[in-house]
Protein backbone atom coordinates (compact mmCIF):
# COMPACT_ATOMS: atom_id res chain seq x y z
CA UNK A 1 0.00 0.00 0.00
CA UNK A 2 1.52 3.36 -1.03
CA UNK A 3 2.47 5.76 1.66
CA UNK A 4 0.99 9.31 1.78
CA UNK A 5 3.99 11.57 1.01
CA UNK A 6 2.79 14.36 3.25
CA UNK A 7 2.72 12.07 6.07
CA UNK A 8 6.28 11.24 5.32
CA UNK A 9 7.46 14.94 4.85
CA UNK A 10 9.61 16.31 7.51
CA UNK A 11 7.90 18.98 9.60
CA UNK A 12 10.40 21.68 8.41
CA UNK A 13 9.50 21.10 4.78
CA UNK A 14 5.81 21.53 5.46
CA UNK A 15 6.49 24.79 7.29
CA UNK A 16 8.56 26.18 4.40
CA UNK A 17 5.83 25.46 1.98
CA UNK A 18 3.19 27.08 4.15
CA UNK A 19 5.42 30.10 4.62
CA UNK A 20 5.61 30.65 0.88
CA UNK A 21 1.85 30.55 0.61
CA UNK A 22 1.44 32.99 3.45
CA UNK A 23 4.11 35.27 2.02
CA UNK A 24 2.39 35.37 -1.32
CA UNK A 25 -1.03 36.00 0.19
CA UNK A 26 0.23 38.68 2.52
CA UNK A 27 2.07 40.41 -0.29
CA UNK A 28 -1.01 40.34 -2.47
CA UNK A 29 -3.14 41.63 0.37
CA UNK A 30 -0.71 44.44 1.05
CA UNK A 31 -0.56 45.45 -2.58
CA UNK A 32 -4.34 45.38 -2.90
CA UNK A 33 -4.68 47.31 0.32
CA UNK A 34 -2.24 49.95 -0.76
CA UNK A 35 -3.94 50.19 -4.14
CA UNK A 36 -7.42 50.51 -2.71
CA UNK A 37 -6.29 53.05 -0.15
CA UNK A 38 -4.55 55.08 -2.82
CA UNK A 39 -7.63 55.07 -4.99
CA UNK A 40 -9.81 56.04 -2.03
CA UNK A 41 -7.49 58.88 -1.10
CA UNK A 42 -7.40 60.03 -4.68
CA UNK A 43 -11.18 59.94 -4.90
CA UNK A 44 -11.56 61.87 -1.68
CA UNK A 45 -9.06 64.42 -2.88
CA UNK A 46 -10.91 64.75 -6.13
CA UNK A 47 -14.21 65.23 -4.34
CA UNK A 48 -12.67 67.83 -2.10
CA UNK A 49 -11.38 69.76 -5.10
CA UNK A 50 -14.71 69.45 -6.87
CA UNK A 51 -16.39 70.94 -3.82
CA UNK A 52 -13.80 73.69 -3.75
CA UNK A 53 -14.46 74.35 -7.42
CA UNK A 54 -18.20 74.47 -6.81
CA UNK A 55 -17.73 76.78 -3.83
CA UNK A 56 -15.79 79.22 -5.97
CA UNK A 57 -18.51 79.05 -8.61
CA UNK A 58 -21.30 79.42 -6.04
CA UNK A 59 -19.56 82.41 -4.53
CA UNK A 60 -19.33 84.07 -7.93
CA UNK A 61 -23.03 83.39 -8.42
CA UNK A 62 -23.98 84.79 -5.03
CA UNK A 63 -21.97 87.91 -5.72
CA UNK A 64 -23.73 88.18 -9.08
CA UNK A 65 -27.06 87.86 -7.32
CA UNK A 66 -26.35 90.86 -5.18
CA UNK A 67 -25.56 92.88 -8.28
CA UNK A 68 -28.78 91.70 -9.90
CA UNK A 69 -30.79 92.59 -6.82
CA UNK A 70 -29.19 96.01 -6.79
CA UNK A 71 -30.21 96.49 -10.39
CA UNK A 72 -33.71 95.26 -9.64
CA UNK A 73 -33.97 97.73 -6.82
CA UNK A 74 -32.72 100.51 -9.04
CA UNK A 75 -34.84 99.71 -12.06
CA UNK A 76 -38.01 99.90 -10.00
CA UNK A 77 -38.35 103.60 -9.14
CA UNK A 78 -40.54 102.57 -6.28
CA UNK A 79 -39.47 99.04 -5.37
CA UNK A 80 -42.18 98.93 -2.78
CA UNK A 81 -44.64 98.31 -5.56
CA UNK A 82 -42.98 94.97 -6.21
CA UNK A 83 -42.86 94.20 -2.53
CA UNK A 84 -46.54 94.87 -2.22
CA UNK A 85 -47.17 92.34 -4.93
CA UNK A 86 -45.00 89.88 -3.02
CA UNK A 87 -42.58 89.94 -5.92
CA UNK A 88 -39.69 89.86 -3.55
CA UNK A 89 -38.02 86.70 -4.79
CA UNK A 90 -36.23 86.33 -8.06
CA UNK A 91 -34.59 83.26 -9.56
CA UNK A 92 -31.91 83.41 -12.19
CA UNK A 93 -30.02 80.67 -13.98
CA UNK A 94 -26.58 80.65 -15.52
CA UNK A 95 -24.62 77.82 -17.09
CA UNK A 96 -22.64 77.31 -13.91
CA UNK A 97 -25.53 77.25 -11.46
CA UNK A 98 -28.48 79.15 -10.15
CA UNK A 99 -29.12 82.27 -8.11
CA UNK A 100 -31.98 83.15 -5.80
CA UNK A 101 -32.35 86.75 -4.77
CA UNK A 102 -34.70 88.03 -2.11
CA UNK A 103 -35.73 91.37 -0.66
CA UNK A 104 -36.13 90.69 3.03
CA UNK A 105 -36.68 92.38 6.36
CA UNK A 106 -33.41 93.80 7.58
CA UNK A 107 -31.73 91.97 10.41
CA UNK A 108 -34.44 89.35 10.81
CA UNK A 109 -33.50 85.67 11.10
CA UNK A 110 -34.67 83.47 9.52
CA UNK A 111 -34.99 85.54 6.42
CA UNK A 112 -38.46 86.91 5.93
CA UNK A 113 -39.74 88.56 2.79
CA UNK A 114 -40.86 92.13 3.13
CA UNK A 115 -44.54 92.74 2.69
CA UNK A 116 -46.63 95.80 2.13
CA UNK A 117 -46.80 96.25 5.87
CA UNK A 118 -43.01 96.40 6.14
CA UNK A 119 -42.16 98.62 3.27
CA UNK A 120 -42.31 101.90 5.06
CA UNK A 121 -39.10 100.83 6.76
CA UNK A 122 -35.97 102.62 5.72
CA UNK A 123 -33.80 99.54 5.87
CA UNK A 124 -34.20 96.35 3.92
CA UNK A 125 -32.04 93.32 3.33
CA UNK A 126 -30.87 91.86 0.06
CA UNK A 127 -30.09 88.16 0.23
CA UNK A 128 -28.46 86.29 -2.60
CA UNK A 129 -28.00 82.53 -2.70
CA UNK A 130 -25.71 81.00 -5.33
CA UNK A 131 -25.75 77.27 -5.99
CA UNK A 132 -23.28 75.28 -8.02
CA UNK A 133 -23.14 71.52 -7.74
CA UNK A 134 -23.19 70.62 -4.07
CA UNK A 135 -21.99 74.03 -2.93
CA UNK A 136 -24.01 76.98 -1.76
CA UNK A 137 -22.84 80.47 -1.00
CA UNK A 138 -24.95 83.25 0.41
CA UNK A 139 -24.36 86.94 0.48
CA UNK A 140 -26.44 89.36 2.46
CA UNK A 141 -26.41 93.13 2.44
CA UNK A 142 -28.58 95.79 3.98
CA UNK A 143 -29.53 98.96 2.22
CA UNK A 144 -31.23 102.13 3.29
CA UNK A 145 -33.93 103.43 1.02
CA UNK A 146 -35.80 106.67 1.60
CA UNK A 147 -38.98 106.15 3.51
CA UNK A 148 -40.91 108.66 1.47
CA UNK A 149 -41.80 107.15 -1.87
CA UNK A 150 -39.14 108.04 -4.36
CA UNK A 151 -41.70 109.28 -6.80
CA UNK A 152 -42.61 112.19 -4.53
CA UNK A 153 -39.03 112.84 -3.49
CA UNK A 154 -37.76 113.18 -6.99
CA UNK A 155 -40.59 115.39 -8.12
CA UNK A 156 -40.17 117.59 -5.08
CA UNK A 157 -36.50 118.03 -5.93
CA UNK A 158 -37.56 119.84 -9.10
CA UNK A 159 -39.31 122.54 -7.07
CA UNK A 160 -42.69 122.23 -8.74
CA UNK A 161 -45.29 124.94 -8.39
CA UNK A 162 -47.63 122.40 -6.85
CA UNK A 163 -47.18 118.78 -5.86
CA UNK A 164 -50.06 116.67 -4.71
CA UNK A 165 -48.88 113.28 -3.36
CA UNK A 166 -52.49 112.07 -3.13
CA UNK A 167 -51.58 109.63 -0.42
CA UNK A 168 -54.37 110.66 1.91
CA UNK A 169 -56.06 108.05 4.02
CA UNK A 170 -59.64 106.95 3.65
CA UNK A 171 -62.05 109.65 4.66
CA UNK A 172 -59.84 112.61 3.85
CA UNK A 173 -61.39 115.38 1.84
CA UNK A 174 -58.32 117.48 1.14
CA UNK A 175 -55.56 116.52 -1.26
CA UNK A 176 -52.47 118.17 0.19
CA UNK A 177 -50.19 120.34 -1.92
CA UNK A 178 -46.82 119.89 -0.22
CA UNK A 179 -45.23 122.87 -2.00
CA UNK A 180 -45.21 126.35 -0.45
CA UNK A 181 -48.19 127.34 -2.58
CA UNK A 182 -50.19 124.81 -0.55
CA UNK A 183 -53.04 124.85 -3.01
CA UNK A 184 -54.81 121.76 -1.78
CA UNK A 185 -57.29 119.90 -3.92
CA UNK A 186 -60.67 118.60 -2.88
CA UNK A 187 -61.80 115.01 -3.21
CA UNK A 188 -65.33 115.09 -4.51
CA UNK A 189 -66.18 111.57 -3.53
CA UNK A 190 -64.80 110.32 -0.22
CA UNK A 191 -65.31 106.79 -1.40
CA UNK A 192 -62.59 107.25 -3.97
CA UNK A 193 -60.04 108.43 -1.43
CA UNK A 194 -57.57 105.92 -0.17
CA UNK A 195 -59.05 103.23 -2.35
CA UNK A 196 -55.64 101.75 -3.06
CA UNK A 197 -53.01 100.78 -0.56
CA UNK A 198 -49.58 101.81 -1.74
CA UNK A 199 -46.66 99.56 -1.01
CA UNK A 200 -45.37 102.18 1.39
CA UNK A 201 -48.44 101.66 3.50
CA UNK A 202 -49.90 104.95 2.35
CA UNK A 203 -52.98 105.19 0.20
CA UNK A 204 -53.89 106.46 -3.22
CA UNK A 205 -57.28 107.36 -4.60
CA UNK A 206 -59.04 104.92 -6.84
CA UNK A 207 -61.18 106.52 -9.50
CA UNK A 208 -63.65 104.26 -11.18
CA UNK A 209 -66.80 106.23 -11.86
CA UNK A 210 -67.99 109.67 -12.77
CA UNK A 211 -67.58 112.00 -9.86
CA UNK A 212 -64.45 110.33 -8.51
CA UNK A 213 -62.26 113.35 -9.04
CA UNK A 214 -59.95 115.79 -7.36
CA UNK A 215 -60.68 119.42 -8.02
CA UNK A 216 -57.89 121.95 -7.57
CA UNK A 217 -58.71 125.61 -7.53
CA UNK A 218 -57.13 127.92 -10.07
CA UNK A 219 -54.16 129.91 -8.85
CA UNK A 220 -52.34 132.78 -10.48
CA UNK A 221 -49.13 130.80 -10.09
CA UNK A 222 -50.44 128.48 -12.77
CA UNK A 223 -50.39 131.17 -15.41
CA UNK A 224 -47.42 129.66 -17.12
CA UNK A 225 -46.17 129.67 -20.66
CA UNK A 226 -43.70 126.86 -20.08
CA UNK A 227 -44.49 123.99 -17.79
CA UNK A 228 -44.31 120.29 -17.13
CA UNK A 229 -47.10 118.10 -15.91
CA UNK A 230 -46.05 114.84 -14.26
CA UNK A 231 -48.17 112.10 -12.79
CA UNK A 232 -47.86 108.50 -11.75
CA UNK A 233 -50.89 106.70 -13.05
CA UNK A 234 -52.18 103.16 -12.66
CA UNK A 235 -54.93 102.46 -15.18
CA UNK A 236 -57.17 99.51 -14.41
CA UNK A 237 -59.34 99.44 -17.52
CA UNK A 238 -58.89 99.74 -21.24
CA UNK A 239 -61.37 102.31 -22.49
CA UNK A 240 -61.48 104.35 -25.65
CA UNK A 241 -61.10 107.60 -23.69
CA UNK A 242 -60.44 108.26 -20.03
CA UNK A 243 -59.84 111.71 -18.61
CA UNK A 244 -56.72 112.22 -16.58
CA UNK A 245 -56.12 115.94 -16.25
CA UNK A 246 -58.10 118.88 -17.49
CA UNK A 247 -58.36 122.62 -17.13
CA UNK A 248 -61.08 123.49 -19.48
CA UNK A 249 -62.97 126.69 -19.90
CA UNK A 250 -66.56 126.98 -20.66
CA UNK A 251 -67.10 126.95 -24.36
CA UNK A 252 -65.07 125.61 -27.21
CA UNK A 253 -61.81 127.26 -28.22
CA UNK A 254 -61.73 129.30 -25.14
CA UNK A 255 -58.54 127.93 -23.71
CA UNK A 256 -58.94 124.26 -22.96
CA UNK A 257 -56.22 121.96 -21.89
CA UNK A 258 -56.68 118.29 -21.15
CA UNK A 259 -54.83 115.02 -21.06
CA UNK A 260 -56.78 111.89 -21.70
CA UNK A 261 -55.92 108.25 -22.20
CA UNK A 262 -57.17 106.94 -25.52
CA UNK A 263 -56.97 103.18 -25.24
CA UNK A 264 -54.26 103.91 -22.69
CA UNK A 265 -52.35 106.15 -25.12
CA UNK A 266 -51.88 109.59 -23.59
CA UNK A 267 -53.43 112.34 -25.64
CA UNK A 268 -52.95 116.08 -25.12
CA UNK A 269 -55.57 118.46 -26.40
CA UNK A 270 -55.01 122.18 -26.49
CA UNK A 271 -57.70 124.43 -27.81
CA UNK A 272 -57.64 128.18 -28.06
CA UNK A 273 -59.28 130.78 -30.15
CA UNK A 274 -56.24 130.59 -32.40
CA UNK A 275 -55.54 126.95 -32.69
CA UNK A 276 -56.74 123.46 -31.96
CA UNK A 277 -53.93 121.06 -31.24
CA UNK A 278 -54.05 117.37 -30.49
CA UNK A 279 -51.08 115.06 -29.94
CA UNK A 280 -51.48 111.38 -29.18
CA UNK A 281 -48.71 109.11 -28.04
CA UNK A 282 -47.98 106.12 -30.24
CA UNK A 283 -47.19 104.26 -27.04
CA UNK A 284 -49.70 103.36 -24.38
CA UNK A 285 -49.44 103.03 -20.65
CA UNK A 286 -49.37 99.56 -19.16
CA UNK A 287 -52.57 98.24 -17.69
CA UNK A 288 -52.46 97.50 -13.97
CA UNK A 289 -49.02 98.99 -13.51
CA UNK A 290 -47.74 102.29 -12.24
CA UNK A 291 -46.30 104.40 -15.06
CA UNK A 292 -44.80 107.85 -14.98
CA UNK A 293 -46.33 110.18 -17.54
CA UNK A 294 -44.58 113.47 -18.15
CA UNK A 295 -45.78 116.14 -20.55
CA UNK A 296 -43.45 119.08 -20.98
CA UNK A 297 -44.55 122.08 -23.03
CA UNK A 298 -42.84 125.34 -23.80
CA UNK A 299 -41.63 127.71 -26.48
CA UNK A 300 -38.27 126.02 -26.94
CA UNK A 301 -39.23 122.38 -27.21
CA UNK A 302 -42.88 122.43 -28.14
CA UNK A 303 -44.58 119.41 -26.65
CA UNK A 304 -42.53 116.45 -25.47
CA UNK A 305 -44.21 113.47 -23.89
CA UNK A 306 -42.41 110.83 -21.85
CA UNK A 307 -43.56 107.50 -20.53
CA UNK A 308 -41.40 106.00 -17.82
CA UNK A 309 -38.58 108.36 -18.63
CA UNK A 310 -38.51 107.65 -22.36
CA UNK A 311 -39.45 110.24 -24.95
CA UNK A 312 -42.44 108.91 -26.90
CA UNK A 313 -43.81 111.97 -28.66
CA UNK A 314 -42.75 115.42 -29.81
CA UNK A 315 -44.88 118.10 -31.41
CA UNK A 316 -43.29 121.43 -32.23
CA UNK A 317 -46.66 123.04 -32.92
CA UNK A 318 -47.30 123.25 -29.21
CA UNK A 319 -44.37 125.61 -28.88
CA UNK A 320 -45.18 127.73 -31.87
CA UNK A 321 -45.15 131.47 -31.66
CA UNK A 322 -48.70 131.48 -32.94
CA UNK A 323 -49.81 130.34 -29.54
CA UNK A 324 -48.78 133.70 -28.24
CA UNK A 325 -50.10 134.29 -24.80
CA UNK A 326 -52.53 131.45 -24.73
CA UNK A 327 -50.37 128.63 -23.50
CA UNK A 328 -51.66 126.47 -20.72
CA UNK A 329 -53.31 128.11 -17.79
CA UNK A 330 -52.87 131.24 -19.76
CA UNK A 331 -53.97 134.64 -18.56
CA UNK A 332 -56.68 134.69 -21.13
CA UNK A 333 -59.56 134.01 -18.96
CA UNK A 334 -59.00 130.38 -18.09
CA UNK A 335 -59.42 130.55 -14.40
CA UNK A 336 -61.25 127.29 -14.19
CA UNK A 337 -60.07 124.69 -11.75
CA UNK A 338 -57.88 121.73 -12.55
CA UNK A 339 -59.65 118.40 -12.46
CA UNK A 340 -57.79 115.15 -11.99
CA UNK A 341 -59.44 111.84 -12.63
CA UNK A 342 -61.77 112.87 -15.43
CA UNK A 343 -62.21 115.38 -18.21
CA UNK A 344 -64.35 118.47 -17.98
CA UNK A 345 -66.09 118.72 -21.24
CA UNK A 346 -66.92 121.79 -23.21
CA UNK A 347 -69.42 123.15 -20.81
CA UNK A 348 -67.71 123.79 -17.56
CA UNK A 349 -68.96 121.72 -14.77
CA UNK A 350 -69.84 118.70 -16.87
CA UNK A 351 -67.46 116.06 -15.73
CA UNK A 352 -67.20 113.04 -17.96
CA UNK A 353 -64.84 110.41 -19.30
CA UNK A 354 -63.88 109.19 -15.84
CA UNK A 355 -60.57 107.54 -15.26
CA UNK A 356 -60.54 103.92 -14.18
CA UNK A 357 -57.47 103.67 -12.05
CA UNK A 358 -55.28 105.54 -9.60
CA UNK A 359 -53.01 108.52 -9.64
CA UNK A 360 -50.42 109.82 -7.26
CA UNK A 361 -47.53 112.24 -7.11
CA UNK A 362 -49.20 114.74 -9.40
CA UNK A 363 -46.94 117.70 -10.08
CA UNK A 364 -47.06 120.92 -12.02
CA UNK A 365 -43.56 122.24 -12.66
CA UNK A 366 -43.15 125.78 -13.89
CA UNK A 367 -40.70 125.09 -16.70
CA UNK A 368 -39.80 122.62 -19.40
CA UNK A 369 -37.72 119.67 -18.29
CA UNK A 370 -34.81 118.35 -20.26
CA UNK A 371 -34.80 114.76 -21.45
CA UNK A 372 -32.13 114.00 -18.87
CA UNK A 373 -34.18 115.49 -16.07
CA UNK A 374 -37.16 113.37 -17.03
CA UNK A 375 -34.98 110.30 -17.21
CA UNK A 376 -33.66 111.00 -13.75
CA UNK A 377 -37.17 111.73 -12.57
CA UNK A 378 -38.21 108.27 -13.59
CA UNK A 379 -34.81 107.33 -12.37
CA UNK A 380 -32.45 104.77 -13.55
CA UNK A 381 -31.58 105.39 -9.97
CA UNK A 382 -27.87 105.05 -9.88
CA UNK A 383 -27.32 108.75 -10.36
CA UNK A 384 -29.97 109.75 -7.94
CA UNK A 385 -28.94 111.07 -4.57
CA UNK A 386 -32.11 109.89 -2.92
CA UNK A 387 -31.87 106.30 -4.10
CA UNK A 388 -30.87 103.42 -1.89
CA UNK A 389 -27.51 103.18 -0.19
CA UNK A 390 -25.66 100.20 1.18
CA UNK A 391 -25.36 100.17 4.94
CA UNK A 392 -21.60 100.21 5.60
CA UNK A 393 -20.31 96.95 6.98
CA UNK A 394 -23.56 95.11 6.40
CA UNK A 395 -22.37 92.76 3.68
CA UNK A 396 -21.87 89.26 5.02
CA UNK A 397 -20.82 86.04 3.36
CA UNK A 398 -21.64 82.50 4.23
CA UNK A 399 -20.36 79.56 2.18
CA UNK A 400 -20.92 75.89 2.70
Amino acid at each position, binding site marked *: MPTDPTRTQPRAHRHARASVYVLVLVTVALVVG*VGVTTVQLSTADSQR*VELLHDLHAARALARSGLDLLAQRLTDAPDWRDAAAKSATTAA*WTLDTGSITGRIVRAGVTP*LTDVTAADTSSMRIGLASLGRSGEARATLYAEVDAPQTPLAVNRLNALSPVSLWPMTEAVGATSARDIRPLANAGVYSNPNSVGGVTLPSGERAPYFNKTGDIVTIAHNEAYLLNAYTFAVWVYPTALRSTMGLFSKNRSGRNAGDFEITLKSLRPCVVFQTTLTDLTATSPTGLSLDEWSLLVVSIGPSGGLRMFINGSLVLTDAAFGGASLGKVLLLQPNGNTNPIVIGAAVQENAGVVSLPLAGSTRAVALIGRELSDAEVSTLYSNGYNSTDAWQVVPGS*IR*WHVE
Partner: protein
Amino acid sequence: MTGSARSTIAARGVSLVEATLSMLVLSLAGAAGMNAIGQAAAGRTRTAERADAASLAADHIEQAFALAYVEPGAAAAALGLDTGESATRSTHDDADDAAGLTQSPPRRRSGAAISGYTSDWSRQAAVVWCDPNAPGTDAKEDINAKRLTIDVRRSGRLLASFQAVRTRAGDRLVPSTATTVISNTAVAASKS
Protein backbone atom coordinates in the same frame (compact mmCIF):
# COMPACT_ATOMS: atom_id res chain seq x y z
CA MET B 1 13.48 6.17 -9.43
CA THR B 2 10.41 4.95 -7.78
CA GLY B 3 7.26 7.02 -7.28
CA SER B 4 7.90 7.10 -3.65
CA ALA B 5 11.26 8.70 -4.22
CA ARG B 6 9.82 11.47 -6.45
CA SER B 7 7.23 12.28 -3.84
CA THR B 8 9.87 12.56 -1.29
CA ILE B 9 11.89 15.01 -3.42
CA ALA B 10 8.83 17.15 -4.15
CA ALA B 11 7.84 17.24 -0.59
CA ARG B 12 11.15 18.73 0.39
CA GLY B 13 10.22 22.24 -1.05
CA VAL B 14 8.06 24.22 -3.43
CA SER B 15 7.30 22.70 -6.74
CA LEU B 16 8.03 24.51 -10.01
CA VAL B 17 4.33 24.91 -10.65
CA GLU B 18 3.78 26.46 -7.26
CA ALA B 19 6.71 28.79 -7.70
CA THR B 20 5.49 29.86 -11.13
CA LEU B 21 1.98 30.47 -9.90
CA SER B 22 3.27 32.43 -6.95
CA MET B 23 5.35 34.65 -9.18
CA LEU B 24 2.41 35.12 -11.51
CA VAL B 25 0.13 36.11 -8.67
CA LEU B 26 2.71 38.46 -7.25
CA SER B 27 3.33 39.98 -10.65
CA LEU B 28 -0.35 40.56 -11.27
CA ALA B 29 -0.81 42.04 -7.84
CA GLY B 30 2.23 44.21 -8.30
CA ALA B 31 1.09 45.38 -11.70
CA ALA B 32 -2.39 46.16 -10.40
CA GLY B 33 -0.93 47.98 -7.45
CA MET B 34 1.43 50.02 -9.59
CA ASN B 35 -1.38 50.81 -11.97
CA ALA B 36 -3.57 51.99 -9.12
CA ILE B 37 -0.80 54.12 -7.76
CA GLY B 38 -0.10 55.47 -11.22
CA GLN B 39 -3.75 56.25 -11.78
CA ALA B 40 -3.95 57.89 -8.40
CA ALA B 41 -0.89 59.96 -9.16
CA ALA B 42 -2.35 61.03 -12.49
CA GLY B 43 -5.66 61.75 -10.81
CA ARG B 44 -3.88 63.75 -8.19
CA THR B 45 -2.23 65.79 -10.89
CA ARG B 46 -5.57 66.40 -12.58
CA THR B 47 -7.13 67.29 -9.23
CA ALA B 48 -4.36 69.74 -8.51
CA GLU B 49 -4.80 71.22 -11.98
CA ARG B 50 -8.51 71.66 -11.41
CA ALA B 51 -7.95 73.28 -8.05
CA ASP B 52 -5.43 75.65 -9.57
CA ALA B 53 -7.78 76.39 -12.44
CA ALA B 54 -10.66 77.15 -10.08
CA SER B 55 -8.47 79.55 -8.15
CA LEU B 56 -7.33 81.27 -11.33
CA ALA B 57 -10.91 81.72 -12.54
CA ALA B 58 -12.21 82.83 -9.15
CA ASP B 59 -9.40 85.31 -8.80
CA HIS B 60 -10.29 86.92 -12.10
CA ILE B 61 -14.00 87.09 -11.21
CA GLU B 62 -13.24 88.60 -7.84
CA GLN B 63 -11.17 91.33 -9.44
CA ALA B 64 -13.88 92.04 -12.01
CA PHE B 65 -16.31 92.85 -9.20
CA ALA B 66 -13.89 95.40 -7.84
CA LEU B 67 -13.93 97.33 -11.13
CA ALA B 68 -16.50 99.82 -12.33
CA TYR B 69 -19.38 98.64 -14.49
CA VAL B 70 -18.49 100.94 -17.34
CA GLU B 71 -15.46 103.00 -18.28
CA PRO B 72 -15.20 105.71 -15.61
CA GLY B 73 -16.33 109.02 -16.98
CA ALA B 74 -18.29 107.43 -19.80
CA ALA B 75 -22.02 106.82 -19.70
CA ALA B 76 -21.65 103.94 -22.13
CA ALA B 77 -18.86 102.25 -23.99
CA ALA B 78 -18.30 99.29 -26.28
CA LEU B 79 -17.18 96.04 -24.71
CA GLY B 80 -13.44 95.54 -24.53
CA LEU B 81 -10.43 97.75 -24.16
CA ASP B 82 -10.88 101.48 -24.00
CA THR B 83 -8.44 104.20 -24.89
CA GLY B 84 -5.15 103.86 -23.07
CA GLU B 85 -5.78 100.29 -21.96
CA SER B 86 -3.88 97.17 -22.93
CA ALA B 87 -3.93 93.44 -22.35
CA THR B 88 -2.16 94.08 -19.07
CA ARG B 89 -4.94 94.00 -16.52
CA SER B 90 -3.48 96.71 -14.36
CA THR B 91 -4.70 99.11 -17.06
CA HIS B 92 -8.24 97.77 -16.77
CA ASP B 93 -10.74 99.90 -14.90
CA ASP B 94 -14.09 98.46 -15.85
CA ALA B 95 -15.71 95.05 -15.88
CA ASP B 96 -15.61 94.48 -19.62
CA ASP B 97 -12.04 95.51 -20.35
CA ALA B 98 -10.96 91.88 -20.25
CA ALA B 99 -13.46 90.89 -22.95
CA GLY B 100 -11.75 88.54 -25.37
CA LEU B 101 -8.53 88.52 -23.38
CA THR B 102 -6.60 85.25 -23.44
CA GLN B 103 -3.53 84.86 -21.27
CA SER B 104 -1.16 81.96 -21.81
CA PRO B 105 0.29 81.41 -19.33
CA PRO B 106 -2.03 83.22 -16.91
CA ARG B 107 -0.65 86.48 -15.62
CA ARG B 108 -1.06 88.59 -12.57
CA ARG B 109 -2.85 91.91 -12.76
CA SER B 110 0.56 93.54 -13.03
CA GLY B 111 1.28 91.56 -16.18
CA ALA B 112 3.88 89.28 -14.61
CA ALA B 113 3.49 85.60 -15.32
CA ILE B 114 2.22 83.59 -12.37
CA SER B 115 4.93 81.18 -11.31
CA GLY B 116 4.20 77.50 -11.71
CA TYR B 117 2.11 77.86 -14.85
CA THR B 118 3.58 76.90 -18.18
CA SER B 119 2.52 78.09 -21.58
CA ASP B 120 0.11 75.19 -21.99
CA TRP B 121 -2.11 76.91 -19.41
CA SER B 122 -4.53 79.56 -20.59
CA ARG B 123 -7.15 81.81 -19.01
CA GLN B 124 -9.74 83.30 -21.31
CA ALA B 125 -12.32 85.97 -20.54
CA ALA B 126 -15.55 86.61 -22.42
CA VAL B 127 -17.96 89.44 -21.66
CA VAL B 128 -21.39 89.98 -23.18
CA TRP B 129 -24.30 92.25 -22.42
CA CYS B 130 -27.16 90.36 -20.87
CA ASP B 131 -30.67 90.87 -19.58
CA PRO B 132 -30.63 91.77 -15.87
CA ASN B 133 -33.94 89.96 -15.50
CA ALA B 134 -32.62 86.83 -17.23
CA PRO B 135 -28.85 87.02 -17.00
CA GLY B 136 -28.37 83.81 -18.95
CA THR B 137 -29.84 85.56 -21.99
CA ASP B 138 -27.64 87.76 -24.16
CA ALA B 139 -28.69 91.32 -24.92
CA LYS B 140 -27.97 93.21 -28.12
CA GLU B 141 -27.08 96.37 -26.27
CA ASP B 142 -26.20 97.57 -22.83
CA ILE B 143 -29.24 97.24 -20.59
CA ASN B 144 -27.26 97.54 -17.39
CA ALA B 145 -25.89 94.03 -17.06
CA LYS B 146 -22.82 92.20 -18.31
CA ARG B 147 -22.09 88.50 -18.05
CA LEU B 148 -18.51 87.40 -17.59
CA THR B 149 -17.30 83.92 -18.42
CA ILE B 150 -13.82 82.88 -17.38
CA ASP B 151 -12.43 79.64 -18.83
CA VAL B 152 -9.18 78.09 -17.67
CA ARG B 153 -7.60 75.38 -19.81
CA ARG B 154 -4.49 73.28 -19.85
CA SER B 155 -3.38 71.74 -23.12
CA GLY B 156 -6.79 72.56 -24.48
CA ARG B 157 -8.64 70.74 -21.69
CA LEU B 158 -11.26 72.89 -19.97
CA LEU B 159 -10.52 72.73 -16.27
CA ALA B 160 -12.72 75.49 -14.91
CA SER B 161 -15.44 77.71 -16.29
CA PHE B 162 -17.01 80.32 -14.03
CA GLN B 163 -19.68 82.88 -14.75
CA ALA B 164 -20.65 86.08 -13.03
CA VAL B 165 -22.93 89.02 -13.70
CA ARG B 166 -22.04 92.64 -13.11
CA THR B 167 -24.74 95.27 -13.17
CA ARG B 168 -24.56 99.01 -13.36
CA ALA B 169 -26.31 99.34 -10.03
CA GLY B 170 -23.73 97.00 -8.55
CA ASP B 171 -21.30 99.91 -8.59
CA ARG B 172 -23.02 101.08 -5.46
CA LEU B 173 -22.17 97.95 -3.56
CA VAL B 174 -19.16 97.83 -1.35
CA PRO B 175 -16.33 95.96 -3.07
CA SER B 176 -16.48 92.29 -2.24
CA THR B 177 -13.09 92.49 -0.52
CA ALA B 178 -14.80 94.40 2.27
CA THR B 179 -17.14 91.57 3.12
CA THR B 180 -17.06 89.49 6.24
CA VAL B 181 -17.48 85.75 6.43
CA ILE B 182 -20.06 84.79 9.00
CA SER B 183 -21.75 81.69 10.21
CA ASN B 184 -25.29 82.14 9.13
CA THR B 185 -27.27 79.16 8.04
CA ALA B 186 -30.49 81.08 7.90
CA VAL B 187 -29.80 82.53 4.49
CA ALA B 188 -28.89 79.22 2.98
CA ALA B 189 -31.77 77.44 4.61
CA SER B 190 -34.33 79.80 3.33
CA LYS B 191 -36.18 78.92 0.17
CA SER B 192 -34.00 75.88 -0.35
